[in-house]
């Protein structure tokens, strides 16, 4: 019999080599077909007396990415459809489906013949669970080999025995740490944890695996042996009593109770380790079935896996424009942003010309890369030769002529129209006409800046976030005249530096900063109302935000907030800014000299490390304080998310962002919008437009016009639509226009 996804070769010793190599895919994944074939192979190995055992490896560079997540998504769609007809039946079907991989792996592990997994490269999720079900596990000694059960990052958890096998191979603390964080393991780490048996030279990998079988590897897993003892001891033991209560507390600390999948991992391990292995698998299957039905799983799978991948692959790239292979990229301005952009560009192997007004400033910008990459080397994340290569790619200069030959120039000079104009003109003089010019401005409309350019078609915004090396999102801003080639080139660049692009039309603050400003502004309002500052910061974090709005203001600087407010008043008039809010900011900056983290005095005090930052006690004296029990804490949480989501809805209504995937993914990557919701628009969709508008109206009555729902949302209520229906990213042809 032959297989589509596997080959099977039996050697003279009777050892079968199963090579997983799916046609037409860059990476092996568990599809339904692959599972059926593997099942048949297990039957063959078990049933053929001439076969002594089997080695499973991959014919690709990587071992496997695990389950086909899009298949999982389809499973959910089917479930939703079936549920409407017969909820009980649909749930039973989902449960059975959830048990398929579990059953297959269990069959493999109890078939009576020894199996060894020969892990030659990245081995994720279901593939690592397959490996754990094998009686022997060998990994190649290579940087390419990375093992993980990362499911929790997309709202689900290892549901093919991972929660049962890991804590039966390693102690519970390490198991919980690995499972709840989705931690990636090197071969060395996996071996020290007892998750793999051997590490072999890459070229001896399969041979090492075969040798294990020849040397009499038992076809029985430890947990199927009589008298099996858990490596970390029983749960109800002194060690267990020291581990479990803090483990539960730490889970809450890290998740604020917002991630049911992470909690389910703890439950599976706890309940599973108190019973025999097969019962544990059934418990895991029950929790998996439950978690698959959560809104969090659906939202996180969509935004953090499917949409993110699509955007990373350039979903918004105009068709028909050939891909740009960058030979040289110019960066104007070697300040903090420019230096950061130079670093990520050089890290991607692209030569960079880093230009500033004098050589000293340019060199200082390059030094930033030196310090970043040196830190990576120190932490063992980069090799010394990688550092040398990266630095060799950055050429500091003060001479515009050095820009000649650049495919793309990113301007990151001071936020001043005149300065930008001069930089644009001087750069264009040196550039070939086909070169693309991008501005990293965060405050000036691209259409306005494009007027400085002789080639407005080639002018675009590429808006990075700070710190550039850490922030994964890039906003690409289209000016009125920006052409397809500029967009395609910008997307190619963002992809080349392994960040995620979203395409945004031109407006004040673009997309991200508009949302972030609402988040901070709502917090100022709360302070003015007399809400104790810790409640504001804690409410934000409990709502799912990574950084409280006051801490965030400190990071970006309070005097910057003041500048933006003043600029907004100059541009749009007095009414554009709440006078109480500007009074608050003026008091902090002008009266108390509190500029934010940069001067160690903001909403927080920043004492010398290792002391932690603490909210400035003086905040209590600025406004009469409400008694904590008089504050509706759940409403605080809601206000912070709703105000951001409403701004995102406005952005969609105005056609600034047109694809809900970009709004969602952008909101998570740029400002960490409660990832369990799937992002700003999924948050609204998850609540439902009708209910969301009702919530907004209630908040509008109490807290002002910022909570007024845009017409778009009212229309969606009328039509009973979600964002993903109204702005269906998969609809044929043009994305529908807003409102």
């Amino acid at each position, binding site marked *: 019999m032959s297989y589509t996804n596997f080959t099977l070769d039996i050697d003279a010793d009777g050892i079968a080599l199963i090579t997983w190599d799916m046609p037409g895919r860059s990476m092996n994944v568990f599809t339904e077909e692959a599972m059926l074939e593997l099942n048949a192979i297990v039957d063959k190995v078990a049933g053929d007396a001439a076969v002594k055992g089997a080695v499973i490896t991959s014919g690709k560079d990587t071992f496997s990415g695990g389950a086909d997540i899009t298949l999982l998504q389809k499973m959910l769609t089917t479930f939703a459809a079936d549920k409407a007809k017969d909820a009980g039946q649909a749930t039973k079907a989902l449960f059975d489906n959830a048990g398929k991989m579990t059953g297959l792996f269990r069959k493999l592990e109890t078939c009576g013949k020894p199996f060894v997994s020969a892990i030659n490269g990245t081995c994720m999720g279901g593939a690592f669970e397959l490996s754990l079900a094998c009686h022997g596990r060998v990994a190649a000694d290579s940087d390419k080999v990375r093992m993980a059960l990362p499911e929790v990052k997309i709202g689900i958890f290892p549901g093919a025995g991972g929660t049962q096998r890991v804590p039966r191979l390693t102690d519970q603390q390490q198991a919980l740490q690995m499972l709840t964080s989705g931690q990636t393991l090197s071969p060395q780490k996996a071996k020290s944890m007892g998750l793999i048996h051997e590490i072999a030279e890459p070229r001896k990998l399969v041979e090492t695996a075969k040798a294990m079988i020849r040397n009499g590897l038992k076809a029985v897993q430890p947990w199927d042996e009589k008298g099996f003892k858990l490596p970390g001891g029983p*749960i*109800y033991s002194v060690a*267990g*009593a020291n581990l*479990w*209560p*803090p*483990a*539960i*507390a*730490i*889970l*809450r*600390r890290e998740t*604020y*109770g917002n991630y049911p999948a992470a*909690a389910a991992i*703890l*439950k599976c391990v*706890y*309940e599973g380790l108190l019973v025999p292995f097969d019962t544990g698998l059934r418990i895991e299957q029950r929790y998996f079935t439950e978690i698959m039905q959560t809104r969090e799983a659906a939202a996180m799978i969509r935004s953090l896996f499917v949409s993110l991948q699509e955007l990373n692959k350039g979903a918004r790239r105009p068709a028909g424009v050939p891909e740009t292979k960058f030979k040289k990229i110019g960066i104007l301005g070697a300040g903090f942003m420019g230096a950061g952009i130079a670093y990520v560009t050089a890290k991607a192997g692209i030569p960079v010309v880093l230009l500033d007004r004098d050589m000293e400033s340019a060199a200082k910008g390059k030094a930033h890369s030196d310090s970043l990459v040196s830190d990576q080397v120190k932490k063992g994340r980069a090799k010394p030769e990688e550092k040398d290569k990266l630095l060799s790619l950055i050429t500091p200069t003060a001479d515009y002529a050095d820009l000649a030959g650049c495919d793309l120039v990113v301007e990151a000079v001071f936020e001043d129209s005149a300065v930008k104009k001069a930089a644009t003109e001087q750069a264009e003089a040196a550039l070939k006409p086909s070169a693309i010019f991008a501005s990293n401005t965060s405050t000036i409309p691209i259409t306005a800046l494009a007027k400085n350019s002789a080639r407005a078609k080639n002018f675009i915004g590429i808006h990075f976030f700070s710190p550039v090396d850490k922030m994964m999102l890039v906003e690409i801003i289209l000016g009125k005249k920006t052409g397809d080639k500029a967009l395609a080139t910008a997307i190619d660049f963002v992809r080349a530096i392994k960040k995620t692009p979203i395409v945004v039309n031109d407006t004040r603050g673009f997309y991200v900063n508009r949302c972030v400003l609402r988040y901070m502004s709502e917090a100022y309002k709360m302070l003015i109302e007399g809400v*104790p*500052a*810790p*409640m504001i*910061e*804690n*409410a934000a974090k*409990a709502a799912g935000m990574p950084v409280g709005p006051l801490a965030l203001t400190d990071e970006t600087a309070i005097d910057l907030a003041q500048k933006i407010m003043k600029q907004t008043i100059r541009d749009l008039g007095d009414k554009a800014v709440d006078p109480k809010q500007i009074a608050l900011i003026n008091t902090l900056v002008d009266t108390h000299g509190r500029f934010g983290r940069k001067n160690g005095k903001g909403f927080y005090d920043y004492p010398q490390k290792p002391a*932690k930052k*603490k*909210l400035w006690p003086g905040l209590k004296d600025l406004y009469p304080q409400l008694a*904590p029990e008089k*504050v509706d*804490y759940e409403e605080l949480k809601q206000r912070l998310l709703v105000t951001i989501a409403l701004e995102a809805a406005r952005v969609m209504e105005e056609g600034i962002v047109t694809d809900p995937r970009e709004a969602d993914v952008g909101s998570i990557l740029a400002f960490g919008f409660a990832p369990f919701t799937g992002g700003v628009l999924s948050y609204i969709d998850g609540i439902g437009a009708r209910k969301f508008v009702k919530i907004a109206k209630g908040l509008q009555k109490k807290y002002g016009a910022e909570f007024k729902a845009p017409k778009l949302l009212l229309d969606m209520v009328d039509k009973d639509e979600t964002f993903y229906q109204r702005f269906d990213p998969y609809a044929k042809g043009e994305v529908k226009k807003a409102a």
Partner: protein
Amino acid sequence: MAEAYVYDAVRTPRGRGKKDGSLHEVPAVRLGAKVLEAIRDRNELDTGAVDDIIFGCVDPVGEAGSVIPRAAAFEAGYATSAPGMQISRFCASGLDAINFGAAKIAQGADEIVIAGGVESMSRVGMGASGGAWFMDPSVGLPGWFVPQGISADLIATKYGFSRDDVDAYAVESQKRAAKAWGEGRFKNSVISIKDQNGLTILDHDEHMRPSTDMQSLAALNPSFVMPGEMGGFDAVAVQKHPEVEEVNHVHHAGNSSGIVDGAAAVLLGSKKAGKTLGLKPRARIRAFANIGSEPVLMLTGPVDVTEKLLKRARMKLSDIDLFELNEAFASVVLRYMQAFDIPHDRINVNGGAIAMGHPLGATGAMIFGTVLDELERRDLNTALVTLCIGAGMGTATIIERV
């Protein structure tokens, strides 16, 4: 309905709950047997008349397992018709045993009940009985589990008690306990633990440190910084009480209840049974109540249960002459005094568990006897006994002299 009367109350001295503690050589069951023997012998009680023996025991496992009051009755040589039952409501178990017994009497089911508790913390470790409350994620998450020390520190933080406040309370507890012992205020209730030869093993509370002062306490490091920070429990506390920016850790061994061994028993009965047996009633159980309270603060249950109990008994705070609140941690008592504006001279007047120790399952019955003795000594009428309880609960009982 019949009323439950209190005829006697005894307790063992409290031995340090460590391997070098004097009662470490005494099995848990024997501590229980000793108080049963004392109740019988002091009252010339026909144990055939005992309808039930109810003992609180928080960790009823190992040697303390298998219904320890029944076992203790065997060792004490009680009539076989006296049955036994072990209960746990954590730290209030001893008081709940009394309330349970009183309820049986009031209902008319029983005539004579011995209620109390026993805990050998040196021999059966705290937490030895395990439990889903803190181990099972399906319980620990919705139950917001934190260790009690974190709760005590959270109470101090939330209600504004400084390290000096809690230390000063502890110093006073030690002073009062020392004075009470010095004046023999406990002699009516405390029995000596003797060996089979009549030699004394322990005749006083050995956990006390009467020389404690602010300076000696200041030298102690707070106990719950590590579990708070490394164990994630501070974060749990802050998530539940978000107006708190960070937990101020103020409790340590010197201002928390001591770990000790001990047992106590109270002889309860109906009026009629007392008469028949020739017993003189000392007090009656006027009312009691239980409540569940916010589990992260955990130890503020006494405030909630006191409100509930006074309301149900149609009484006012001013009707209570003396309060006895278990000194699990200093902040627990400080918060109670703050909530009801109770002056220190009406609460825990003879010190408490910070000085003398807290043998978990027995404490409720011990402090019940302590305050009854004190009502008699001062010739006052009414007392309220209450304890904070793990997982956020409260038990309280009001007694009245007759």
